[in-house]
């Protein structure tokens, strides 16, 4: 059996593919892809904002994510087999999503309630640095809709409550905090 590669620093292999990488190599690559996905989306948003204005960028972002969320759910259900209609499924989704992996949210599952705390958020850091107050729209309007679509993918009766949203008092403050409350299975 051929020993899996940790990386591809050796000789050129005309038939190289990811299947030849070791488990550790694959995990490293997945982490890098997660960051890549976030950067790609961010650069698109900023380019459209620069070229077509902030309203168009915001509006297109919503349409893009309505389509991409379906693809994310497909990965979660088909590859990771995350199904079920409880808030525990939402928690599991946050752990495996390529998008949320970069954010490493703190998840506290309490029976029929899930609290999700984002202590770090590169998007909010960039928005704070930009200083145009766009976090009011992105974190206060778009994110609640996005989280609702995640919750409702698993169960339309799950309620999403924003417990804490930007602006932050300081850099030590949490970025945002959410509660997902089950409406069934009591």
């Amino acid at each position, binding site marked *: 059996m051929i020993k*899996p590669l940790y*990386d*591809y*620093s050796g000789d*050129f292999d*005309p038939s*190289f*593919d*990811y*299947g030849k990488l*070791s*488990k550790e*190599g*694959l*995990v*490293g*690559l*997945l982490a*890098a*892809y*997660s*960051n*890549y*996905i976030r*950067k*790609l*989306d961010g*650069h*698109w948003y900023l*380019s*459209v904002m*620069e*070229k*077509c204005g902030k309203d*168009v960028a915001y*509006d*297109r972002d919503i*349409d*893009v994510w309505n*389509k*991409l969320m379906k*693809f*994310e759910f497909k*990965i979660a259900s088909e*590859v*990771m*087999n*995350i*199904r079920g209609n409880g808030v*525990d499924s939402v*928690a*599991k989704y946050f*752990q*495996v999503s*390529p998008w949320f992996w970069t954010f490493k949210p703190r*998840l506290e*599952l309490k029976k029929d309630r899930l609290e999700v705390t984002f202590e770090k958020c590169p998007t909010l850091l960039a928005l704070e640095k930009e200083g145009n107050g766009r976090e009011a729209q992105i974190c206060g309007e778009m994110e609640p809709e996005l989280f609702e679509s995640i919750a409702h993918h698993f169960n339309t009766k799950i309620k999403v409550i924003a417990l804490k949203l930007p602006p932050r008092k300081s850099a030590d403050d949490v970025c945002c905090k959410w509660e997902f409350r089950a409406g069934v299975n009591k």
Partner: protein
Amino acid sequence: MAKLLKDYSGEFDPGFSYKKLKRETLLELLRGYADYVRKIDGHWYLEVMRRCGNEAAFECDAAVWVRMDPFEMEMTKRILGTGGDTPLAMAKTLQASPWAASYNCEVEVINENHVILSYLTCPTIVSLEKEGMGREKLICHDLEVKLMREKAQCFNPAIKITPLKLPPRSGPDDVCCQWELRLDRPK
């Protein structure tokens, strides 16, 4: 040692990480992520085109990739150790990039300083041909040639990139595009 998971269908695990998954599952996820990358880019382009027209979408696309390509090359070199200053190092990096799973690319190595890349399949050209608006002229000729040269800069500014074959194709069996990567070292 804990048993590796095929998927995450079991109970919620507060300490879940991808390290707990089987290699085959990680591989499947990686393919999913690669597809995700292509979808993000494609959906953004189409949504902007729908609202603001192709010219604006193309300009945004070019601005995005001028920034993303160097990041992608450096990321792949760092994670997979594919760095170097030769066309062969560039070919290895392209084989392992997040986009690689989307294409079937044949690499002909004449020597480490002279490589031919032939893209036998390309979902973008298939979509553009289906759309029939001739956008491949802008994307494959104007943008890709520029971006391939930008990528070469990440390895060695002296690498010459020559497109040997670009769309339109004579038929679906024709190669999508073909590139020569060449570095003439002073003797």
